[in-house]
């Protein structure tokens, strides 16, 4: 795994790291990927992937509106609000 690849992953995951932290995470990831590559030993030709933990399918509920109470707790945790809206820095310069 080279630095270009790590930078790409950090970009996708929206995480900023120092160059020291980048080095450490690169070497950790290499070790982990080296360990998990043992899966390639197993022949899985024609095996249907198990996509989740559940056997349930198409769980539906009545299409009804449930009004939720105005929740101050939700707003309490947000750094900045104005007139009931979440306030964020500008997206366009």
């Amino acid at each position: 795994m080279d630095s270009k690849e790590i930078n790409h992953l950090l970009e996708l995951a929206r995480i900023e790291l120092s160059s020291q932290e980048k080095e450490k995470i690169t070497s950790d990831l290499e070790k982990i990927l080296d360990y998990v590559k043992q899966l390639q030993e197993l022949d899985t030709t024609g095996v249907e992937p198990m996509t989740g933990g559940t056997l349930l399918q198409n769980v539906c509920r009545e299409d009804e509106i449930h009004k939720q109470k105005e929740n101050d707790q939700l707003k309490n945790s947000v750094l900045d609000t104005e007139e009931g809206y979440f306030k964020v820095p500008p997206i366009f310069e």
Partner: protein
Amino acid sequence: MIKELHQKLVNKEITAVELINHYFNIIEEKDNQIKAFLSLVEKEKVLKQAEQIDEKINKGENINLLEGIPFAIKDNMLALGTRTTAGSKILEDYESGFESTAVKSLKDQGAILIGKTNMDEFAMGSSTENSAFFPTKNPCDLTRVPGGSSGGSAAAVKSEMVPFALGSDTGGSVRQPASFCGIVGFKPSYGTVSRYGLIAMASSLDIISPLTQTVEDAELVFKIIAGQDSMDSTSFNLPTDSDKKKDKEFKIEDLVFGLPKEYFQKGLDDVIKKKIEEAIKKIESQGAKIKEVSLPTSSYALSCYYIIMPAEISANLARFDGIRYGGIKNLKIDNLRDLYFKNRGQGFGAEVRRRIILGTHVLSSGYYDAYYKKAQQVRKLINEDFNKVFQEVDFLLTPTSPTLPFKIGEKSDNPLAMYLSDIFTVGANISGVPAINLPCAWTENNLPVGLQLIGSYLSDYQLLQAAKLIEKIII
């Protein structure tokens, strides 16, 4: 233990107020050292609840089994009126916006929430050292870790700061700390307990699970928190045929236990091996049949887990953007992009970042088939292995952890060594089957050894019944 406390309340040997004071006193006395709790519910509020219960008792009204019984929850479960940090800086000031279904079910029965316990950040770790706040210590030996990620809940129950606690188990996060602390930790079948209000780690593996002193207590708590919930579409009621079976009593001599040979090979601590073999001999001498079996793909379970779990993490933790659930204070932010990168870079600890990046990698274009799809196919093979083995035997007996509780700091710089802590527990999550840790022996240095009992999918009540029989034999 819960039944005894209930009886004492009903018989007026103790009041609900005295019970609360008793546990708060123990916390005050012991938690400076053990550090099991991240936050406590205000004592005044808790005492008011207890007073109401005492009034009911005094009027001669009936009370529920859990009414007035205090409990704690891992700090990744939302409970109104508490902060929920998940052990992370990024959620340091996050006020629970609603109530987890499992917590609501317990409160509806009159159980009293008294605190929220420490954990590895976002439940990622096997030692509770990854908490952004402080590590928790093992009550059996304060120089050692309590296991993780539900280490705070395990330590709180072990040191009798609460009669029971909830944890969450994604790859062993309840059973392994239960093993390290010498208590019971029960991971139910996937989907039997609602995940609503549990901060998601890996959604296809996560389940809320009780930590208790006895199997009977684990069953009592499980009965309350289990059941279908419209807020979690993967939850369901245990099917009626297994409900019927749960009432069918069986004896130890009716049972066949399988010993998967792969769980007793290299990597297993010699002392644990010896103690587990002694326990198995005791179980056999009581008339149970013991049979060596094989789960050929089990040695791939950890690798499979370390692809599926981080993949789900990378998606689940995308919601922590520094806006919606709060973020790091006093950052110098120029624009929105900056806000994301800085909050996530500084708000998440090293292990969380590692797993998000790993998950991003295995899901990224060009690698998806080689990693993620392959792991899902291996998951299917592991699941088939469990299905096959349960046609031969009723339950599996294995060690819960390959090592005894290790020293604080011993593995914190070596992620892969830490990951191996879960090698015997991840299989049950990959496959969705129920499993329980039972304390089975103590070493010369007074460290606990845990025995894991694994059952077939949806055999939860039978598994608990078998665990009660074994509990009597080995302790």
